[in-house]
């Protein structure tokens, strides 16, 4: 397989996307909270300003009204007409907050608040020093001019939106800045895997080819055994190499679907696995029917290789491996250690290895699953501890069976 060394890796891998979204959500919440806080402060300051302006005006009204009340107090009860004004409405309340006389449209709500808003009206509560007509509180009421509120809300919306956009641009810039080291690390790792994979290709091929070419007739039994071990070890490395190639460069490989004789392919691969199986003295039982699938050969090979090599890897010494192939599907059953029930669901995750006694990267089953999903097949796992595991690939799901 040719290995490309190009660096155009999809930078927005799943994990990076997730971190990006998390960061952006957090950043957006923070920015929104900050803008909300600033808006609240701005609103409050504008409200204070409005109150200050009204307080000044209404105090003038209150003072003129007090003079009139003083006058009325003096001439009461000869004069009983409460003083009125076109500019404001007013009311007087005694120290027990009981109404003496009122022209207000809205009932006063507070007597301890100097100035407040109520239903479109502004109320100023003025406490009298001398209680003319028994009045302790003089309340001045005017209509509220709402332009300040409209202007404030308009400013908050416009400036808030502009600030949000600017801060969002900053956010994207920061994300890129912060993700750069992570992206560099991914690039480095990808490059490393690609380079290593590339460099592994030639020596592995050389070892395997040369082992085949060695003339064993002249060899002692001891050396023959050693050579077999070297052969098995090299084949294991070769399998790992193929997984790595697929894993690192799978997305760059063109899918090449063709009609494949699955039985022939399995038999072909089994030659390779018999040698590995023999080292554990494993018996293979093959029940293979003629099945043709329209599929990418490299991909279905990865599925078969991984399922069979796992069955060997996790099998007991002197165990058995049963491989069934029918037009319905393909299954590999071992007599190995089995998989705990709670681990079955996660066994297809990348880098998931439920048992550390055996070597591996934990990418094999992840590859199997991604290929099976790609072709719309179903995959089922049945496992009993210390009895064995059966993994079944169902071809029927999307009618790829020919």
């Amino acid at each position, binding site marked *: 397989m040719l290995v490309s060394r190009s660096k155009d890796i999809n930078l927005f891998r799943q994990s990076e996307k997730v971190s990006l979204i998390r960061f952006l959500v957090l950043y957006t919440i923070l920015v929104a909270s900050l803008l909300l806080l600033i808006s609240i402060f701005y609103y409050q300051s504008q409200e204070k300003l409005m109150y200050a302006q009204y307080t000044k005006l209404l105090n003038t009204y209150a003072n003129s009204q007090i003079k009139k009340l003083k006058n009325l107090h003096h001439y009461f009860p000869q004069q009983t*007409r409460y003083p009125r004004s076109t500019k404001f409405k007013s009311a007087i309340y005694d120290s027990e907050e*009981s109404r*003496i*006389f009122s022209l207000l449209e809205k009932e006063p709500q507070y007597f301890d608040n100097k100035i407040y808003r109520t239903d479109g009206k502004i109320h100023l509560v003025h406490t009298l020093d*001398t209680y003319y*007509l028994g009045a*302790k509180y003089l309340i001045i009421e005017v209509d509220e001019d709402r332009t300040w509120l409209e202007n404030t809300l308009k400013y908050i919306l416009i400036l808030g939106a502009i600030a949000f956009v600017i801060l969002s641009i900053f956010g994207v810039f920061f994300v890129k800045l912060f993700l750069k080291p992570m992206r560099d690390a991914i690039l480095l790792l990808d490059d490393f895997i690609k380079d290593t994979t590339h460099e592994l290709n030639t020596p592995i091929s050389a070892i395997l080819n040369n082992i085949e070419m060695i003339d064993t007739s002249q060899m002692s039994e001891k050396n023959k055994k050693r050579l077999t071990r070297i052969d098995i070890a090299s084949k294991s490395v070769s399998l790992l190499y193929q997984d790595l190639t697929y894993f690192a460069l799978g997305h760059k490989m063109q899918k090449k679907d063709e009609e494949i004789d699955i039985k022939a392919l399995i038999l072909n691969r089994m030659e390779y696995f018999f040698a590995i199986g023999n080292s554990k003295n494993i018996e293979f039982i093959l029940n293979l029917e003629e099945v043709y699938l329209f599929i990418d050969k490299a991909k279905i090979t990865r599925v078969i290789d991984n399922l069979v090599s796992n069955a060997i890897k996790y099998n007991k010494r002197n165990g058995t491996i049963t491989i069934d192939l029918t037009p319905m599907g393909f299954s590999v059953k071992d007599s190995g250690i089995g998989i705990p029930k709670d681990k079955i669901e996660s066994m297809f995750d990348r880098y998931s290895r439920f048992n550390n006694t055996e070597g591996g990267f934990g990418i094999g089953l992840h590859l199997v699953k991604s290929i099976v999903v790609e072709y719309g097949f179903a995959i089922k796992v049945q496992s009993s501890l210390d009895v064995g595991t059966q993994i079944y690939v169902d071809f029927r799901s999307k009618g790829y069976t020919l």
Partner: protein
Amino acid sequence: MIKKILILSIVLSTFMVAKTPKEIYEKNCVECHATLPSSLEKMFMSYIKTYSGERDTKIAIKTFLKKPDLDTSVMSEVFLDKFGVKKPTKLNDKELDSAIEYYFNQYKIKGRLN
């Protein structure tokens, strides 16, 4: 003899028959104040100008009537210099309360402005 019995019965009836607040007020307040230049209504206005609320005003009037004092009087110094401070009331608490109630209702501002 008949004259004596008549006088006795009048005196007894005065003590035995409960008086109305109006009677207490008119007998014990209006009579004396009629001789003063400042009307009871003006005095009421002075009270509410100082104490505002109904409860506070009534308490102030009662306190002053039971123990009149220059410092607690609401009247001007000129008035007090000329007429002095009144003598403590001889009315009991119940009679005093009813008289003050009557007085307050007579002159209160609430309901009289238009």
